[in-house]
């Protein structure tokens, strides 16, 4: 893969997206606005994984764990009468610190990519069991009762009105994608892309690969934590289900289906797969899981690059130039 260069058309695309996000709430019913807000939160989560997996080649199976920790941090601080703004910041910190700790062990211990995947998955599964075992009211942090598998409810929202909340989430996603694209084209992003392609060569050139990987992994975890806090705020509840195997797999499926490395692909994948899940969910959860599993297997086998890169390559092969 060539290093990312921003095309001259890209700011135009950003402008168009900004306009669409700004006017969309006026064209939709309140229900649809609320619905699309949660899709955008999932897009944030997908883009956070793409920053570590697509850019630096660090596949975390535990992105859902950072998301969940962010959500729980938000819920716990809100229950202890902190302002939603402070709770949101706590969500970001929780995701970032968890990812930083795991990343420190993985990168400074020089674990292989596969160990990173297994370790993050195991941490997620154990968080599921730990938080699931907190049903007894004696498990509480300050005034926040964790509630076992029922989770925490009545979490206050960041912004009670749907439309401002939509704009906040949409604005954050917009900011994330734009700054993420700029980061990819900046020297730091170039080093990460080089680490993905050949880590040893990067180290021979004098860069500290461990530090770079740790930085992007913690950043990715922090964004996942932000998404989790927004999710808890959106629905007013959080339960250990966010740490389940299906949820962790879903994040990976979004990015895999949409296509890695461009950030746009991840967001598109999250949107498409989530819309499909929503539809299938009305039939039965087992069908959703079955289809998600089949999707994962078939994309790995048939279209490992995902939809967007394959589509763009198709365009260029029929003679339409793209950069």
């Amino acid at each position, binding site marked *: 893969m060539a290093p990312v260069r921003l095309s001259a058309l890209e700011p135009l695309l950003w402008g168009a997206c900004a306009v669409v996000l700004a006017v969309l709430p006026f064209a939709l019913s309140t229900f649809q606005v609320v619905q699309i807000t949660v899709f955008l939160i999932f897009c944030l989560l997908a883009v956070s994984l793409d920053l570590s997996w697509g850019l630096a080649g660090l596949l975390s199976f535990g992105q859902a764990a950072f998301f969940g920790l962010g959500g729980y941090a938000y819920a716990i601080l809100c229950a202890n009468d902190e302002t939603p703004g402070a709770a949101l910041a706590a969500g970001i910190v929780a995701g970032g610190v968890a990812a930083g700790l795991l990343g420190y062990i993985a990168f400074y211990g020089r674990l292989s990519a596969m160990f990173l995947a297994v370790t993050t998955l195991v941490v997620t599964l154990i968080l599921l069991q730990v938080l699931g075992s907190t049903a007894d009211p004696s498990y509480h942090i300050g005034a926040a009762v964790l509630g076992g598998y029922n989770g925490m409810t009545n979490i206050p929202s960041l912004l009670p009105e749907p439309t401002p909340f939509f704009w906040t989430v949409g604005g954050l996603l917009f900011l994330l994608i734009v700054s993420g694209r700029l980061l990819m084209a900046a020297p730091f992003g170039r080093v990460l892309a080089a680490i993905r392609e050949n880590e040893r060569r990067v180290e021979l050139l004098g860069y500290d690969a461990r530090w770079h990987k740790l930085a992007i992994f913690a950043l990715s975890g922090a964004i996942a934590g932000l998404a989790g806090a927004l999710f808890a705020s959106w629905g007013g509840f959080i339960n250990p289900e966010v740490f389940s195997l299906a949820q962790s797999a879903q994040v990976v499926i979004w990015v895999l289906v949409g296509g890695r490395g461009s950030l746009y692909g991840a967001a598109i994948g999250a949107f498409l797969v989530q819309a499909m899940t929503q539809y299938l969910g009305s039939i039965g959860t087992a069908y959703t*899981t079955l289809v998600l*599993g089949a999707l994962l297997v078939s994309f790995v086998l048939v279209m490992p690059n995902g939809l967007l890169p394959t589509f763009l390559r198709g365009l260029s092969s029929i003679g339409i130039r793209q950069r």
Partner: protein
Amino acid sequence: MEYLIVTLIGVVFAIASLVLLALGLAIIYGMMGVINLAQGEFIMLGAYTVVLSSAHGLQLWVGMAMAPVVVGVVGLVVERCIIRFLYGRLLDTMLATWGLSLGLIAAVTLILGPSTEGVATPFGHVAIGGYAVSAYNLFVIAATGFLVALTWGVFNRTRFGLIARGAMQNADMVAALGIHPPTIYMMTFALGSALAGLAGAIMAPLTGVVPSLGLAFVAKVFITVTVGGAAIFSGTLGAGTLLGAIESAVSFISTPIYGQVAMLGCALVVLRFAPQGISGLWRRSG
């Protein structure tokens, strides 16, 4: 004294069940460097084989004998349809087996229903002084010992084992000697799956059998295999002993959940200092 013996049996049982569940994955990982994320679901399929055969009036032992065959065949099909296209792409293999894991859970839920099935634990209890120990736990310990010895024998005393270990060290050299490494991979994968099925069958009388049964075990199994490292037998036994002892000790003073957390914490510390797993430590010196 009696109390000490009973506690000791508890610890040995924890270690044995860990080794039993991890053995199949350890073989697949040691052989191909791949973590099969659907291993938990292979364990679940083994347990369901026992449940279904008992429900059809067959003896428990018949079901236990059928489980490795059934799951071995499933493993063979999976290898032929999915894994063989992905050799050399470790992360892709993990992703595909993860999809398989989700698919198997959903398929079993749709076909057999989400309710908990069970089979009665055979053998009753053995009295040690004033304490009663489930005789089936002793059977699990014995069966684990037997299976580890058997697999060790297969890998170290047979022609297949020799070729398999050769392919593990240098597949190109094995190919140059006229043996087709993909065939060896296929057989090893099926063997690892069959062992997972058998482990599930043996554990079935001790747990309720649900489609998500694998999830209860996989975290432990993955930790054991990664901490064990690439050496199949010494690594799995070493990691199983270390982690099983920690888990049962912590479970004993608090709850099983914290036992697992302690196990994970210990595994992370070990991996930080021995990224190749504990068998990497003695490999380097030896």
